[in-house]
């Protein structure tokens, strides 16, 4: 292989190779080249996204750790803090969905452990192609099984997430996993190899094999028995070892045995060691032959870039090393001193004392940065073209509602989350199925809530508005349960940034998110970027998944969406759409996609100030105890929101006849009221005798509201339009998304 083929096969461009030559002042060897290739990848180096990420606000009164560490950290109160991050595992999941998803969960858990936090909650954001395709069904089933398989066994509850299906993700599923951990604010660990020279580097966890080594070099070799044996392996997760790793790491930290801690992700020891060195402005030497191996005959370069799962790297003072090894033994983990901290500032790999590669850690940390050309894609004008007056009026609202509720992107997610243990840990106050999961912090009144959101369709039709809408929806979801939103993590899933179209979507979404984060006061404290999500059929929808965390001073004051009592008034806060309209609430709506089969129009641009005012008001009313039932209006409009609340509570709903009569002659307006998606809208209920209090609470606010009906009975009624039993609704909505799937044990791809 020529040198050019070699670096190209490692994913480095000519420009990047020249840059390496210039930095190093000599030709790098294969190991060194491998180090650059992984550290300068998008995943580690953010070379295409770094300038964009700078647009995110990342400070705030509760932020203890912003981006740049293994996870962001926010303060809850009484000395408690939360560490959290979201990460993608799209590509591995497309190839091997079960293990891809499982190792994605394992990886994000280790990021949180590396901060010293105990992982207490997992979420996931998933996208697949439509379920009428066998491969998509296979990916969906195996990804969900993989998430459960890992999360359930490791004993961290999976408390939330989201799933959607669209042709845009056929062949390129999205698997984003998020983890939240809890920690004392003054015990946050940083992955810096400080305390300099002489400290030892300890590797602990599973043994190292040839997992996930960039197989690229072998790809062009002829397949011989020998090359087959050397080929990189698919990474397989071992939640059992993962569980031991959590307990062991926390024990080590609790006993004050570590100087620094870092998880092993892409490019294994090499990248973890170089990150630690770069952050600590020191050097690290690794003795490759000391690494406990699973396979025979591994070469030193393979050892240091292997991506074997369930391993951590720690910096330890020499006199504590024995104690560290002993603790690892108690948890039945392999552990070894594999190197030391030095002052030379390089990441140096030694094989039996011989240096086989050495690169200044700063060079590795300093990936080149590309500012790409931003060009508004031509598809947008076409996609945004939509005249609401061309839209047929539904002639049977019963059928519309049932079809909407049964659609794979809107129906109950129970068949997914019932495969996840959502309660292990005994901290889950509100389980999956509500707008956000609510968790308590044991021994206190404190709690937190967490949600994951994004609408790919919205971002496709209007990247900037969609980016803002994702943040706004998360903000609404947290407010609905009564939590004060604090900060977000995100995972930017996009197509190729090298195409102006793709970069436009990325840049615009980031701008939209940044603006929303600014206005809503929820800085970005961690995140991850996944680019090049494309198949021959084109790029995925721009899909910036947002994971938002909020806090409670008193977690017992929370709300859920289910109707609680008969005879409550049902109030739409934020108001039903008014005419003359400012935008078209059916543009880009779920209704348009589900019923008319169209992804078109420009969704209403989020009014962030209104979002904030309405959400903050809902939260205040939950805190004061005035309301205990709230739900935001998002996909599917108010009609779907009402139906979800009725089903969740097992209590019927009666739309007030006078409201319907008001619009009897204006069927278009009625359609928009029932099915439109305009943002900044909530449905809440109050007992009738507290209606004056609610009006009082709303009197100072600049927010429209409409009392739209009453809870009660076992039917769902919109006079003259809909009359269905809850049982009808339930049958439509509670579908098993896996019903036609093949069983486990099998491949069926």
């Amino acid at each position, binding site marked *: 292989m020529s040198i050019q083929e070699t670096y190209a096969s490692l994913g480095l461009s000519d420009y990047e190779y020249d840059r390496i030559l210039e930095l190093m002042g000599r030709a790098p060897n294969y190991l060194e080249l491998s180090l650059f290739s992984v550290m300068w990848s998008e995943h580690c180096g953010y070379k295409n996204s770094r300038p964009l990420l700078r647009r995110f606000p990342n400070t705030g009164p509760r932020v203890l750790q912003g981006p740049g560490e293994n996870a962001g950290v926010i303060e809850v109160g009484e000395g408690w803090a939360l560490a959290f991050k979201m990460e993608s595992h799209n590509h591995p999941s497309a190839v091997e969905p079960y293990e891809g998803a499982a190792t994605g969960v394992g990886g994000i858990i280790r990021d949180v452990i590396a901060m010293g936090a105990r992982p207490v909650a997992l979420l996931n954001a998933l996208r697949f192609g439509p379920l009428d395709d066998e491969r998509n069904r296979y990916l969906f089933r195996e990804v969900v099984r993989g998430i*459960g398989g890992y999360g359930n*066994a490791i004993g961290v509850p999976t408390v939330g997430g989201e799933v959607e299906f669209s042709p845009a993700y056929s062949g390129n599923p999205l698997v984003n996993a998020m983890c939240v951990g809890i920690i004392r604010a003054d015990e946050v660990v940083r992955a810096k190899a400080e305390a300099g020279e002489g400290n030892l580097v300890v590797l602990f966890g599973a043994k190292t094999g040839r997992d996930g080594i960039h197989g690229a070099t072998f790809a062009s070799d002829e397949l011989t028995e020998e090359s087959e044996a050397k080929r990189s392996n698919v990474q397989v997760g071992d939640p059992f070892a993962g569980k031991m790793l959590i307990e062991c790491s926390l024990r080590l930290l609790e006993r004050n045995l570590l100087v620094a801690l870092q998880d092993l992700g892409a490019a294994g020891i090499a990248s973890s060691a170089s990150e630690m060195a770069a952050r600590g402005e020191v050097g690290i030497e690794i003795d490759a032959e000391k690494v406990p191996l699973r396979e025979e005959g591994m070469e030193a370069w393979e050892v240091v870039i292997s991506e074997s799962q369930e391993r951590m790297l720690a910096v330890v003072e020499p006199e504590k090393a024995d104690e560290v090894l002993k603790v690892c033994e108690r948890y039945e983990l392999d552990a070894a001193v594999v190197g030391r901290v030095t002052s030379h500032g390089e990441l140096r790999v030694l094989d039996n004392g011989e240096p086989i590669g050495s690169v200044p850690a700063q060079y590795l940390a300093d990936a080149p940065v590309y500012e790409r050309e931003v060009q508004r894609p031509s598809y947008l004008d076409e996609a945004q073209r939509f005249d609401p007056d061309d839209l047929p009026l539904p002639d049977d609202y019963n059928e519309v509602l049932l079809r909407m509720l049964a659609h794979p992107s809107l129906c109950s997610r129970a068949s997914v989350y019932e495969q996840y243990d959502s309660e292990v*840990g*005994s901290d889950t106050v509100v389980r999956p199925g509500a707008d956000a999961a609510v968790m308590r912090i044991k021994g206190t009144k404190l709690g937190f809530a967490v949600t994951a959101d994004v609408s790919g369709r919205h971002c496709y039709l209007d990247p900037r508005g969609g980016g803002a809408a994702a943040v706004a929806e998360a903000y609404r979801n947290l407010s609905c349960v009564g939590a004060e939103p604090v900060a977000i993590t995100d995972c930017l899933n996009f197509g190729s940034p090298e195409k102006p179209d793709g970069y436009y979507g990325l840049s615009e979404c980031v701008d939209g998110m940044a603006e929303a984060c600014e206005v809503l006061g929820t800085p970005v404290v961690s995140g991850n970027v996944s680019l090049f999500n494309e198949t021959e059929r084109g790029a995925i929808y721009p899909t910036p998944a947002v994971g938002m965390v909020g806090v409670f001073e008193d977690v*017992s004051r929370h709300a859920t969406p289910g109707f609680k009592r008969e005879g409550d008034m049902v109030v739409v806060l934020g108001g039903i759409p008014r005419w003359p309209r400012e935008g078209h609430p059916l543009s880009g709506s779920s209704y348009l996609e589900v019923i008319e089969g169209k992804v078109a129009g420009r969704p209403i641009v989020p009014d962030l100030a209104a979002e904030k005012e309405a959400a903050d008001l809902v939260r205040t009313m939950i805190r004061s105890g005035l309301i205990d039932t709230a739900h935001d209006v998002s996909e599917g409009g108010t009609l779907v929101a009402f139906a979800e609340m009725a089903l969740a509570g097992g209590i019927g709903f009666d739309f007030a006849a006078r409201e319907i009569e008001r619009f009897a002659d204006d069927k278009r307006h009625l359609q928009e009221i029932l099915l439109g998606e305009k943002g900044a809208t909530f449905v809440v209920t109050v007992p009738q005798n507290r209606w004056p209090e609610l009006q009082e609470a709303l009197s100072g606010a600049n927010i429209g509201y409409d009392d739209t009906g009453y809870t009660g009975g076992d039917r769902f009624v919109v006079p003259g339009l809909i009359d269905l039993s809850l049982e009808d609704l339930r049958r439509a909505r509670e579908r098993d998304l896996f019903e036609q799937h093949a069983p486990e044990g099998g491949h069926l791809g």
Partner: protein
Amino acid sequence: MRIGVTVFPGSNCDRDAMHAVERAGATPVELWHADPELKGVDAVVVPGGFSYGDYLRPGAIARFAKVMGPLEEFAKSGGPVLGVCNGFQVLLEAHLLPGALLRNTGMRFVSRRARTRVEKADTPWTALYGEGEEITLPVAHNEGNYYADEGTIRELEEEGRIVLRYLDNPNGSANDIAGICNEARNVVGLMPHPERVSDPALGSEEGLRVFESVLAAAGAKV
């Protein structure tokens, strides 16, 4: 009263069980799998989780752990032992209870609330429930489908050793069995998780009486 909670590699409901024990008013004592001693506890809970990753078969490896020797003696001498979920599986593998737990018939992990009926209040772990009382408990398992040969099932029925039954069987379990006890009635295995509903902060305390029962039973004996 001191109640031991075993911790195997891969146990993950141990902390939850200790929390429930505390809430019931007893002192939880960690029993590490590699230490062959029960530290003088008055009762033992074998908690849920994935001991040894559930590899091979749930409970198959854990039953050989060093702590199991003394635990078996304790059980045979009448000491109250409760196995929950994976702990139930461990007790079956250790032959402290009869039968086995197979894969759920739906072939999926099932995590949800199950309605159950307490059939027997004459065990140390159910003494404070009314016989026939219906309670809702969380289940979360892959292998909760109770199986035993016909003779054994008949015996369990006739001897009143089915302690808890599902009202909406989530896993295909024979005779809707959610929990059983041994002949001496001191060893109880439950598939659902009472420890997860033992705190009003989580919205339900329907499981707390399992842990309070053993305190009451001990109190009655003194």
